[in-house]
């Protein structure tokens, strides 16, 4: 192991793995840190039909496993470690994990994003007891049961459709007057007899004894409240960037998304950001992978300009 790495990548989602592929090919000594599962959010969905080239039964786990293999084949090393803090101020950057301290010439921040909790009564109490944020993890438990999916965007519909393979019924609730999901998913949902869609409605409360038994819905137009018996509540109602560790160290917007230029450079020299963690308007696997590639190539260039032998 070298004492000084060329490139330290934080997060092994599509952005970090793509950066790993490009950094490896540039023959940069590269580590990729991951605290959870390699592949990030993308490894938790059966979807991924829209990633170019992913035809014939693409699944998140399959595609991200290949990304990992590809990055490792080019020499990037995966470290199953959680980054606890970073020191980005000097020319040599430090990354401190639960297992050790690593020094690098460049750092690529690719921590991605995680689901938002709604903060409604019952949500916290019943997490793991019927409330879930991961359909592929938990669908089995809801075989032949009735579930509600909160969120009418792409993830809500995609994961809702996945759940129909197991559940008796899947009700998708969206707070806005209309669904936000892409048209193809809306068509599929409309044609699936197990799916029911309710718009302009919010889930106000989740209730039960030990496990979820029902939700209270509120019609946003009329204010009318209704009860709906369900055993499962799947929440896909938005994301937040996992950038708390880097607050005050690199420039961010108010929500915590990192500011970068078109080379994925943050305001700190030698520090780049890629993927869902940065300010942009389309947060998808394809854009995360694109960011990772650009960040790694920019890192390579930064090294040749600043660490001439």
């Amino acid at each position, binding site marked *: 192991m070298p004492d000084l790495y060329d490139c330290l990548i934080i997060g092994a989602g599509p952005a970090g793995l793509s950066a790993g592929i490009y950094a490896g090919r540039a023959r940069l000594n590269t580590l990729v840190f991951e605290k959870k*599962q390699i592949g990030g959010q993308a490894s*938790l969905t059966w979807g991924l039909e829209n990633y170019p080239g992913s035809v014939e039964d693409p699944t998140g*786990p399959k595609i991200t496993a290949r990304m990992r293999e590809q990055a490792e084949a080019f020499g990037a090393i995966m470290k199953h470690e959680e980054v606890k803090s970073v020191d980005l101020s000097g020319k040599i950057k430090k990354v401190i994990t639960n297992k050790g301290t690593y020094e690098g010439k460049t750092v690529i921040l690719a921590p991605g994003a995680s689901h938002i909790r709604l903060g409604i009564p019952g949500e916290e109490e019943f997490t793991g007891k019927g*409330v879930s944020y991961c359909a592929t*993890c938990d669908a089995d*438990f*809801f075989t032949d049961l009735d579930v509600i999916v909160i969120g009418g965007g792409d993830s809500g519909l995609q994961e809702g459709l996945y759940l129909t393979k197991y559940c008796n019924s899947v009700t998708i609730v969206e707070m806005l007057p209309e669904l936000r999901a892409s048209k193809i998913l809306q068509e599929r949902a409309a044609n699936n007899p197990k799916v029911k869609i309710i718009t302009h409605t919010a889930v106000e409360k989740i209730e039960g004894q030990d496990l979820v038994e029902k939700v209270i819905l509120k019609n946003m137009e009329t204010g009318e409240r209704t009860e709906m018996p369900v055993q499962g509540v799947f929440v896909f109602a938005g994301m937040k960037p996992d950038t708390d560790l880097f607050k005050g160290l690199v420039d961010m917007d108010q929500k915590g998304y990192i500011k970068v230029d078109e080379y994925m450079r943050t305001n700190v020299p030698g520090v780049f950001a890629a993927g869902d963690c940065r300010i942009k308007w389309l947060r998808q696997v394809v854009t995360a992978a694109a960011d990772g590639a650009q960040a790694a190539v920019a890192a390579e260039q930064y090294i040749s300009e600043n660490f001439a032998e």
Partner: protein
Amino acid sequence: MIELNAQNFEQEVKNETSMPVLVDFWSEKCEKCMALMPEVEELEKKYEGKVKFGKIDAQKDRRFCWSLKVMSLPTFQLYKNGEKVEEITQDVTIDKIEEMINKNL
């Protein structure tokens, strides 16, 4: 790690009084669970003789999981003298598991 199921749970967990038992609920479809597994196995070695480690394949025994009030993966439960004393679910990291163990040693 001992493979637990509805048949041996009583014997291996409920009747275990010599040390705490960590129960790992997992399935092959759960990527988060699969990523944690090797690290949990490392913990098992580290706490050998102090904590007993078991796992339940949720896909094989969904109803049994329901009866233990588990409807999400990954879930880790810690039992002491046959009683469940603590549980963590969903946003699980290896540090959180070790913390839970240390609190209950």
